[in-house]
């Protein structure tokens, strides 16, 4: 290890640690709305990190992420929820929420495994569009299978608790830290933070080790990866599994964040939002996915909250651009700008600010799916 890499690693560690301290202390200061927004952001980060493993790291375009989120969310509410419903009756096992959470992750993974034979057969864009089909078929399934989903309006999500410690609902045992009562929002914040940190840690470990290197080479050159001894099909299937499990966990948190789940929430739009997160944040980077997720999922809420004091946004009901439209313009525009000028996304920008060398865009990887001619004249020279 060279000195510079140790030094940057130390700086990185200190920054991360400081960030963690701030995040840990935040519930003492900020209001419920922001804590709830934060919890939604943590959920989105987990989902985005998972999608980034698949799309950013391995180069497998998937628009099915909303479907796997739905599987996670629905499994959680079915396994841990009680039977109920008025207009449409639905079932439930009423098992402890932690069982539901694990089941949600496992079922989403299973769904990914079931889809992966199709995924393995398809390349690039065909996979992208086939996975788009999964979102529509999944939504149809959920709307039809009302005994699980509660139908169009959905069903309530059971509050989470862990060995008698409640993260919502009854708020038992009563807890106050430094005079601040720790209610549902505060508790969920810590739950989200812990799971999110764990998910990011796991993913960044993965990227820096044997499986991660194999996945990145699958993206850059499938042929080279296989010739180096990587079983490409197997790795594609495995990363699909892992990505779906991340989505499943994100789905469980999504259900906890809303307090209910409805099939409608898991539309194509959600998949597109997740894609936007990882593109804006930076394909293939864990920190980037986190930044992108925070940006995309919090932006509409932040704009909405401050719409009164932002000059270009009008209050709801007035002619002009309202907050959610402004958010759509902003992240649509951000996607365009990022792809055009900073393919590394927010992560790339951060790296550039630190003045670290960055590979030029036109450098290899030479993709095997593009029609690189079979003679050496193009080797290394950009088109």
């Amino acid at each position: 290890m060279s000195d510079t890499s140790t030094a940057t690693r130390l700086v990185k560690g200190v920054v991360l640690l400081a960030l963690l301290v701030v995040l840990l202390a935040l519930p003492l200061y900020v209001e419920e709305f922001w804590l709830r927004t934060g919890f939604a952001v943590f959920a989105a980060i987990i989902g985005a990190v998972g999608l980034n493993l698949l799309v950013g790291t391995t180069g497998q375009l998937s628009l099915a992420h909303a479907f796997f989120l739905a599987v996670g969310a629905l499994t959680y509410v079915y396994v841990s929820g009680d039977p109920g419903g008025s207009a449409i009756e639905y079932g439930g096992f009423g098992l402890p929420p932690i069982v539901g959470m694990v089941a949600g992750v496992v079922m989403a993974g299973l769904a990914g495994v079931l889809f992966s034979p199709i995924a393995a057969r398809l390349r690039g864009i065909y996979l992208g569009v086939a996975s788009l089909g999964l979102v529509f078929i999944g939504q149809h399934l959920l709307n039809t299978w009302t005994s699980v989903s509660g139908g169009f309006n959905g069903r309530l999500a059971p509050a989470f608790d862990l060995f008698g410690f409640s993260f919502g609902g009854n708020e038992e045992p009563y807890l106050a830290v430094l005079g601040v009562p720790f209610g549902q929002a505060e508790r969920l914040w810590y739950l989200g933070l812990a799971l999110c940190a764990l998910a990011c840690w796991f993913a960044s470990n993965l990227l820096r080790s044997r499986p991660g290197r194999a996945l990145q080479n699958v993206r850059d050159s499938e042929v080279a990866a296989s010739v180096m001894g990587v079983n490409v099909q197997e790795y594609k299937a495995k990363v699909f599994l892992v990505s779906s499990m991340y989505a499943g966990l994100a789905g469980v948190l999504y259900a906890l964040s809303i307090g209910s789940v409805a099939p409608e929430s898991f539309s194509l739009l959600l998949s597109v939002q997740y894609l936007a997160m990882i593109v804006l944040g930076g394909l293939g980077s864990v920190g980037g996915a986190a930044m992108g997720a925070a940006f995309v999922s919090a932006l509409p809420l932040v704009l909405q909250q401050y719409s009164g004091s932002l000059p270009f946004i009008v209050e709801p009901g007035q002619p002009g651009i309202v907050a959610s439209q402004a958010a759509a313009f902003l992240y649509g525009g951000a996607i365009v700008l990022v792809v055009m000028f900073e393919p590394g996304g927010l992560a790339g920008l951060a790296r550039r600010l630190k003045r670290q060398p960055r590979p030029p865009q036109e450098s290899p990887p030479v993709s095997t799916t593009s029609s690189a001619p079979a003679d050496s004249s193009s080797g290394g020279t950009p088109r």
Partner: protein
Amino acid sequence: MNQFLSLLLNGLSLGAIYALIALGFVIIFKASEVVTFMQGSLLLLGAYLIARLSEPIGFWAAAAVGIVGTAAAAVLVERLLISRLRGAPVISLAILTIGVDLIILTEITRRIGSDILNVGHPWGGDAVSIGGVGITTNRALAIVVAGILIGAFFIAFKFSSWGIAMRAAAEDGEAAALMGIRLGWVSMVAWLVAGVLAAVAGLFATGSPTPGVTPAIWAVALAALPAAILGGLDSTGGALVGGLIIGVATAMAAGYQDQIAFLGRGFGEVVPYVVMVAVLLVRPSGLFGTRDVTRV
């Protein structure tokens, strides 16, 4: 039997509209290796322009402006964004078009607001009877015009210098460039043609029997995407066949809902995707798409 014929005719007219959009997907893919997700907003843009202008300047002039305007918008996107990113990963380009789509869609949605804009077709809500089966004039015209346009496209594709250049470029971009084919020009014309096709699709997708221009017609292009894929993303003939298959399958599934009730109510909506996934399972590159050979 009458119901069947009626559904078939309706499905074909719907399929003709899908085919126009799907053809746009395919042309763009062949010429610039971009899978565009912005056909929906181009279609909406075309329909919006026509509807907004048909009152002040008359329908025919509005149609002309709408088509030219949409084509211009497509060319603008190609020139300003796509052409500067030659060789970028396919995924980045696809996501770029999603971003552009989001911007256009949001703006037009904002402009339409809560209205339903009337396209102002001179044929209005008229209907014609073909072999005892009724169909709105608008949809009958859709079949005719789509037929003519697609026919003209195939002739141009086969014989015009652009068509030849484009096929060469799709075969091997590098070699084509070495032989003096201007890839930028090929790509620009492809986007132009796709813009025209999207606007024409918008023109017919919005009139009777649908009420008029609402942001919801953006979703029409979403059904055309599986049409392009199941035909084979690099096959122009495949786009036509795929469009018709999706159109007819959707109409049949909606019309014979009772017979397929075990698949759940409202199954018609997901038919395009079910058909597509089924086809892809058997033929991973679509019905007429070429399988790519790995070259190292």
